[in-house]
């Protein structure tokens, strides 16, 4: 990369260091859930924000996080670098491999190409939320028991994609699995285990529903 361009403003940059000192404020979900228009949205109605840091409020796994980020910071980097939520991985960083998969309003997205500022007002769900009570989710359990993992770096993304996929396709065929999970890549070659895991998780989730 050879191009360079001066930023309009460097003032007020919230740095990683600030975050680690605790500048990233976290409050519980209930308090701000009905907080109507968030800060960046309010600013946007009047015009333009950035390129320096902008107050951004993210609702992640039911908790509200207030951050100050440049508009160029992706949702993935905001979570990984500024909130230390690292289950979602950075792999291709170009909307190809699915390792960064999060759910946005319950739909899987590539967080590497979602800007954090665009994610305001949406419900973000990450892999961390699926074990908040310490127990593995049915999809995780099935991945574990079918050894649908080796190095494990693609696994959280696959688990998220599968979780959303099974919500939509509770009785998947193998062909649906292959199409539905075509947006995730594994390097170690765990697809055989993943195929088994998805079928087993589907069964387990139905069992769970039937039992109330």
């Amino acid at each position, binding site marked *: 990369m050879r191009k360079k361009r001066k930023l309009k403003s460097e003032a007020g940059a919230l740095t990683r260091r600030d975050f680690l000192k605790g500048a990233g404020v976290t409050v519980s979900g209930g308090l701000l859930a009905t907080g109507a228009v968030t800060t960046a949205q309010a600013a*946007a*109605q009047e015009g333009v*924000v950035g390129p320096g840091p902008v107050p951004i409020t993210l609702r992640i796994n039911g908790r509200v996080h207030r951050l100050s980020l440049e508009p*160029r910071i992706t949702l993935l980097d905001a979570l990984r670098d500024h909130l230390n939520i690292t289950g979602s991985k950075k792999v291709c960083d170009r*909307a190809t491999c699915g390792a960064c998969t999060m759910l946005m309003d319950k*739909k899987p997205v590539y967080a590497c190409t979602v800007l954090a500022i*665009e994610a305001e007002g949406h419900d973000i769900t990450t892999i961390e939320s699926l074990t908040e009570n310490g127990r593995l989710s049915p999809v995780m359990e099935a991945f574990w028991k079918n050894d649908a993992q080796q190095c494990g770096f693609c696994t959280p993304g696959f688990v998220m994609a599968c979780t959303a996929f099974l919500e939509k396709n509770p009785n998947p065929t193998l062909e649906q699995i292959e199409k539905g999970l075509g*947006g995730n890549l594994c390097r170690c070659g765990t697809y055989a285990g993943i195929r088994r895991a998805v079928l087993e998780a589907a069964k387990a989730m139905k069992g769970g529903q039937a039992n109330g």
Partner: protein
Amino acid sequence: MQAFEYASPRSLQEAIRLLPAQWGPTDVLAGGTDLVSAMKDGISTPQRLVNIKQIAELHRMTFSPRAGLHIGATVTLRELLDDGAVQQHYPGLIQAAEAARSEQLLNMGTVGGELLQRPRCWYYRNGYGLLALRDGKSLVPEGENQYHAILGNAGPAYFVSPSFLAPILIALGATVQLHGPRGARSLPVQKLFVTPTRVGQREHDLAPNEILTEIRVPYRPGVRTAVYEIREKEALDWPLAMAAVALRQEGGVLRDPRVVLGQVAPVPWPSPEAERTLTGKKPSEDLADAAGRAAVAQATPLSKNGYKVQLARIAVKRAILSAVQQGG
């Protein structure tokens, strides 16, 4: 990624006011999968990004037999796929959108963004511009052109139009609505795509301060459609060749056939040759094969992409057969 200012207007007029009259300093953000990636690669270096996803009027989809299907630019591919009217009346569109083969892309990608995404040409993506120039000379003819154009490739543009949706939309006679400071205009989808002939020219007939707002697809009962694409991978990948077909059968013969190829030329590539071959004929495998051959008769492959001629021919043949075999 370089820093930029950001706006997320609620109205179309506001959005248009935020766009300057020249390319470069501002980009319109919709799904973001292509644009944000291009920004990370330093291919796009906007100083301002205008997010149009909060403009409600761009996110509507309506259908009526009289008006046809109106798809707001920021309707996602997933929303398109899940729409009952689309499923019922536009199976070809469903086939084309499904080709994305990634649930994440379907959820993020918008119909407007799909049409306006930039080419995947790896010289372009590595910073050599749309025309892949180095010292004024295109890198493509003597380079790694296995994924480049086989039609409309007299130069200087050799990239292929990447849109999955454009071929079927063209086959269906769809138009796009564009809004700019001086109001709205409408274009047939085919006219949205242009082959650049000089540095700085884009591959879309779209002014820097215009926004693609809507895609309108006529309702044509009795028209059978099909899309066939060939690619290396089954998972998320780019087709090597794609064909979209729309036709009617009357009294045992084909009427009003439209055949449009994708991924083979700098623009979606309608084939009047294939259409002439089909018109008024009784469908058969031989006829479909003849149409496929006609579609690529003018192909001028480069040093490493001769195989795409065969793939385009087969895609046309199989799309025709698939369309013919459908009911309705």
